[in-house]
């Protein structure tokens, strides 16, 4: 099993969610996060006072997937969230040691 963490641009969330639904991803966790990478924030000006915000808002997706679909999930996110501009985000894949469904106690891939 793999644990996939993707950081994407917030406005791409719905598109990515639909594309992942189409390839059979049954669930994910979404959070609003802030951070920076090569894209270096932006400048705000209030009555001449300039503030540069070096953290930009992004959306973080967390998806647990079985080994055989993990590569397809990564590819789908990479293609859907892509705007070909800096700041599109990153995708990380970790090995997942175990998964348990709380309601039934099922473990392993059946719990995903």
């Amino acid at each position, binding site marked *: 099993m793999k644990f996939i963490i993707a950081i994407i641009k917030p406005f791409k969330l719905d598109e990515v969610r639909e594309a992942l639904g189409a390839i059979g991803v049954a669930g994910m966790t979404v959070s609003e996060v802030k951070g920076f990478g090569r894209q270096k924030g932006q400048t*705000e*000006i209030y*009555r*001449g*006072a300039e503030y540069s915000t070096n953290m930009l808002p992004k959306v973080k997706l967390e998806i647990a997937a079985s080994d055989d679909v993990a590569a397809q999930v990564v590819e789908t996110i990479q293609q859907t969230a892509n705007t070909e501009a800096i700041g599109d985000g990153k995708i990380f894949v970790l090995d997942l040691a175990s998964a348990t469904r709380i309601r039934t106690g099922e473990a392993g891939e059946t719990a995903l």
Partner: protein
Amino acid sequence: MKSTLSKITAVGLGLGLLAQPALAAPVAEAAAAIPNPGNNAWMMTATILVLLMIIPGLTLFYGGLTRSKNMLSTMTQIGATACLAMLVWVMWGYSLAFGDTSYEGTLGSFISGGSYFLAGTDMSSTAATFTDEVISKYVFISFQMTFAAITAALILGSTAERMKFSAVMMFVPIWLTIVYFPIAHMVWAGDGLLFAAGALDFAGGTVVHINAGVSGLVLAYLLGKRRGYPQEPMPPHSLTLTMVGTGLLWVGWFGFNAGSALEADGSAGLAMINTFVATAAGALTWMVVERLAGHKGSALGFCSGVIAGLVAVTPAAGNAGPFGAILLGILSSIVCYFAVSKLKAKFGFDDSLDAFGIHGVGGIVGAIGTGVVYQAFLGGPAGEDAASIGAQLLIQIEGVLVTIAWAGIGTLIAGYVVKLTVGLRVDEETEVDGLDIAEHGERAYN
């Protein structure tokens, strides 16, 4: 008085057709001027429009500009200041500014007396307007009361996010007494120093805006900078609320400016159209200047331009033609833009929400500019016998300088009295936690 007499006689004759014996009574009482209900109704409306400017107009305008931890403190200080000013006004303020007793000589140029606790005022009392008409005195007292209230509240824009609530409550009555009431008398009372000199100030460019702006600047200096200013970012927490407040201020300002005609007449109409067009010009100019300076036209720029236009047209409201007013709005926005975005940073004072940068500076532009736009060649209402433009400008500048000096020195005295007794500034922990939770035990947003 002649027109009032003939009106009353006409009414008497009309009634006379129905009941002959009633004819004698109104004619006999005609010596006492009766307020025209239309004027009275307009002045009551104008009065509550000025209240709308304070609550919720100014509270939201200033509140939105502060950080979210100081939202309630900013709004509550404004509300409490206005309430305190209202009570002080009826106890001794009205008497000092517009009281029934005029003093002989120098004293009379600065204050009046004789109407403490509104002595001698009842339902039939009237106050003079600029024509033969009169309005009910209680309405006049209420209208002028709201001016004292908003002027005191405007100062809090300079002191936001660090002044103690108790210090505000102590400062306001002292400041009103030694600064506001004498200046209101000087500019608006018949025997007042600047009124007698011929200074033009239709709705309070000197009394309200320069006065509040300069007082705010002096108090900001006495208080010191906010912790972390200017290194730490302190962006406005809700420009949405600031925009709502700006709209309410603009609407309320029609009561402030057009109401200052004291009647529902052509002068009020002129003040009304000027309050539209000068403001519109100010708002757009600020955004254009932002673009020319290489930035984006901003929402806060729009709001700031609205206020800069409104402030500048205040002394000129009934003293300019619509196109003179537009010129004034444009000029005020340009000057205020540089005052808040360039000058302020150079001088390094912490006028938190720019009460001086916009009300003080815009007020000075408006007060001096009124001397120019008043002239007939710019469409102003100056008559044949009016002072020349040069003479009028000198009088306007005198008015500005007297106001700056009086407000500056008076605020220094009032501020030091508070500083040496209850203290002006909150402690460090309160400032870091925010004045909302530390001074009022609440949070604006939960």
